[in-house]
């Protein structure tokens, strides 16, 4: 599969993850959410050291284990079995969120249901549906230095997800720094500035992005 196959569709899930991976820097400590964000781990540039944090108390997440090395005491925040690395350290949930809340994590990549033009994020509950809880998402968006949201540009119904005001209950207010969708990338330099369209997937036009976005942004 080459980029060419997607010229008219925008980026696929893995390409969105790869785009997010371009925001990594050598030496970064990073927390990756469930879903597309998890795929960022497969796209770390060669020669770059990025240490992944898992909010259930681990720094230095390794790959999934071989079948004969599965360990019930070694899981990630998505409750999947994982492996450790030589530089791994373990700590309690209290110490883990002290790290997160205290601003020690350089970057978090999370999924989103809605992002508002002011940087509000909604990704934890849909009214009327069974509430499962926010897990660590509210702590991550409040504490981590830089928040990237990776999500489809529009919902299954074709509705924009980057919108003037979130309609769903918020995960965090004015917390998002960058949005990566299957169509485009929006970024803002600080939390007082509007988002700017900084990049489009191959074959996607600024007009298409405009037509599928109800949020205000700078082009």
């Amino acid at each position: 599969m080459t980029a060419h196959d997607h010229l008219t569709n925008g980026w696929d899930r893995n390409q969105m993850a790869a785009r997010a991976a371009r925001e990594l820097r050598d030496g970064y400590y990073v927390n990756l959410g469930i879903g597309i964000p998890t795929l960022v781990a497969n796209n770390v540039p060669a020669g770059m050291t990025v240490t992944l944090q898992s909010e259930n108390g681990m720094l230095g997440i390794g790959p999934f284990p071989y079948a004969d090395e599965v360990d019930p005491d070694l899981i990630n925040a998505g409750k999947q079995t994982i492996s450790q690395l030589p530089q791994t350290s373990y700590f309690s949930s209290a110490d883990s969120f002290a790290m997160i809340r205290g601003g020690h994590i350089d970057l978090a990549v999370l999924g989103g249901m809605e992002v508002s033009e002011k940087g509000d994020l909604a990704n934890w509950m849909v009214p009327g549906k069974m509430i499962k809880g926010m897990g660590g998402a509210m702590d991550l968006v409040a504490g981590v230095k830089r928040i990237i949201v990776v999500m489809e540009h529009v919902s299954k119904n074709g509705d924009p997800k980057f919108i003037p005001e979130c309609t769903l209950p918020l995960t965090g207010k004015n917390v998002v720094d960058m949005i990566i969708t299957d169509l485009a990338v929006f970024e803002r330099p600080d939390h007082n500035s509007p988002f700017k369209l900084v990049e489009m997937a191959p074959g996607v036009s600024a007009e298409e992005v405009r037509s599928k976005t109800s949020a205000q942004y700078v082009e």
Partner: protein
Amino acid sequence: MAKKIYPDAASALEGLLFDGMTISAGGFGLCGIPERLIDAIQASGVKNLTIASNNAGIDNEGLGKLLRTRQVKKMISSYVGENKEFERQYLAGELEVEFCPQGTLAERMRAGGAGIPGFYTKTGVGTQVAEGKEVKSFDGEDYILERGIRADLAIIKGWKADESGNLIFRKTARNFNQPAATSGKICVAEVEEIVPVGSLDPDCIHLPSIYVKRLTCGAPYDKKIEFVTTRERESA
């Protein structure tokens, strides 16, 4: 020496349980959950429990067992997916749930155990979580006041403990067990192995003996995994 070691979970809990009590429980998903103690609480029939625990187990595993028997009045948790009976009781209004962000929950337990009745955090500012909570500005930024949790009882799962109660955890099974332990007026721990005093490195004790008032060995354990994920060995 005052004896801390009990032959089983039921005797370790003797005299500590009462209807309407609050319990802090360790564990993340099914990882590092105090399963023997949960079984003994189920068997005791104690009712109207308020339980602070990151998750609520799954159907018939972990705290899911106490939900099934309707012994739980209220859960304080950050994530309760993967649990049909929970969902049924919650939607029917039979079970009260206080959703608490994961880091706030861990810190509330730690604060309760550290004599801190309240602390300010940015987590949840401007969201439903902030409703009804005091907001205070520090250096131009808003924070909300969260309360420490002081439970009547803490139940935790450790890996090894020495006979004096010094305890260590293994890998990500440490999780909420450490803060939960400190948040209880009394903490009862189950471990996989009890070793003689002097066997553990004093520089590497995760939970000093002062926190472990009662101790039982629950081995052998058949630890459950929620999602087994593996990779293939590359052929040489």
